[in-house]
């Protein structure tokens, strides 16, 4: 029997499993192949929705569904925390003592936030990278009556590069609607020399920042927090005062990947081939989504477009057939929506060879994002889009 083991039940792991279940249905039925997903919680979370909890339009319970309900019935689900990948014996060790063997291994293990890596983050800063934190930020915004709001980034890389800028636009719109705009200063700290990494997007949003009175601070990577003076310091040696601080927390890959010798410390990002998605030259271990060290957006969209490549490569190996050139290599494709506030949005679509050419922000792309968020459960994990 050929054993396929997928670690992680997020976008990448779930979609890869469902695509493989279709391609290998005969072998799964005869028992020649087994297909198993391991997930720590057994719950699939739609993380892009966290931002909307903070903005007051979403509830945590709408963002989670049982992983079992999203998986093809031919896929086994094991709920448990992974402790180690033992490459010598091709075995994954779980915290509860289970040992799961594999012939093909997929690492779709996402990333974790480590706010504790920045001293005083937990008492001084808010974020929107978990449902709980996003709700706390919502409460902080509800009690905000004016002052200085600073939005910054305290680590690299982080999930969803546009999110902090979107939050700045959405908060500005909210303050205006609540009549608090005149007594509030809004500051956005960009890690690089412009508002956003993609130059064309930056050119589009910089005038919007100016028009909305959001002060842009470039080359400002948040390094430390001084809770006594209520200021943040940047890696580049500057400081900025705040009343309400919203920071993207540092992110890391999973610790067990470092412990297993698959990913280097301290980041824990898996060294992944940009086309084949194989890990560190290994023929039978793949990575996708947030877990990789690829220089791409850490976003569900990336995993969405990587999953068909991983599924195709594993299916071709198991079936002993040639690769379908349509899905043999990942091209770096990413596609995501970008909110600019006031009910408008745009679309970012690009790959390794083609930079994005975002359309002028309009209501259509904002509505596109709303519809995508609502229909996600029926489309992406099941391979329907």
């Amino acid at each position, binding site marked *: 029997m050929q054993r396929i083991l997928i670690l992680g039940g997020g976008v990448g792991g779930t979609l890869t499993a469902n695509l493989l279940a279709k391609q290998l249905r005969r072998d799964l039925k005869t028992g020649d192949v087994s297909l198993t997903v391991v997930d720590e919680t057994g719950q699939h979370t739609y993380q892009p929705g966290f931002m909307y909890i903070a903005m007051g339009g979403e509830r945590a319970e709408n963002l989670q569904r049982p992983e079992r309900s999203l998986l093809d019935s031919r896929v086994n689900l094991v709920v448990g925390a992974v402790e180690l990948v033992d490459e010598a014996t091709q075995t994954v060790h779980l915290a509860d003592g289970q040992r799961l063997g594999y012939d093909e291994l997929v690492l779709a293990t996402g990333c974790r936030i480590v706010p504790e890596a920045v001293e005083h983050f937990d008492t001084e800063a808010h974020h929107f990278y978990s449902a709980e934190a996003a709700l706390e930020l919502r409460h902080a915004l509800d009690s905000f009556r004016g002052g200085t709001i600073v939005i910054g980034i305290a680590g*690299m890389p982080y999930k969803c590069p546009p999110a902090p800028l979107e939050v700045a636009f959405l908060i500005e719109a909210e303050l205006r609607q609540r009549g608090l705009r005149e007594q509030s200063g809004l500051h956005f700290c960009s890690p690089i020399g412009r508002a956003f990494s993609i130059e064309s997007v930056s050119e589009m949003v910089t005038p919007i920042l100016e028009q909305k009175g959001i002060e842009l601070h470039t080359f400002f990577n948040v390094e430390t927090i001084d809770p006594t003076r209520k200021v943040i310091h940047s890696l*580049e040696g500057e400081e900025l005062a705040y009343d309400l601080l919203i920071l993207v927390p540092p992110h890391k890959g999973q610790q067990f990947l470092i412990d297993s010798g698959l990913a280097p410390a301290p980041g824990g990002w898996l060294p992944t081939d940009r086309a084949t998605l194989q890990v560190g030259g290994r023929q039978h271990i793949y990575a996708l989504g947030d877990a990789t060290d690829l220089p791409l957006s850490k976003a569900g969209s990336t995993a969405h477009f990587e999953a068909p490549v991983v599924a195709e490569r594993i299916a071709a190996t198991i079936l002993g057939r040639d690769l379908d050139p349509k899905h043999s290599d990942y091209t770096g494709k990413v596609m995501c929506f970008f909110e600019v506030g006031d009910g408008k949005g745009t679309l970012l679509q690009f790959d390794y060879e083609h930079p*994005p050419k975002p359309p002028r922000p309009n209501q259509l792309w904002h509505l596109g994002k709303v519809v995508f968020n609502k229909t996600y459960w029926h489309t992406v994990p099941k391979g329907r889009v």
Partner: protein
Amino acid sequence: MDDTATAVPDRILDGRGSFCPGPLMELIRGIRESTPGTVLSVYSSDSGSKSDIPKWVAKAGHRLIGVFPRDGYDEIIVEKTH
């Protein structure tokens, strides 16, 4: 002698084809994860990196070793100084 012969990078950050988050973000990640004295090499196919990265390196107080055109991309070598 090759112009990079005296600066063999300890770490290569391949940012080719990266539009979001982009090669500079890759360098910032690398700098944050490294110890002082580490020499990092960033590969970039984005023409803006030739000016963006040296500007950030100067502002952050690290040392730019050089910007070198390669076959279809630029290699930018930086030493983390503090």
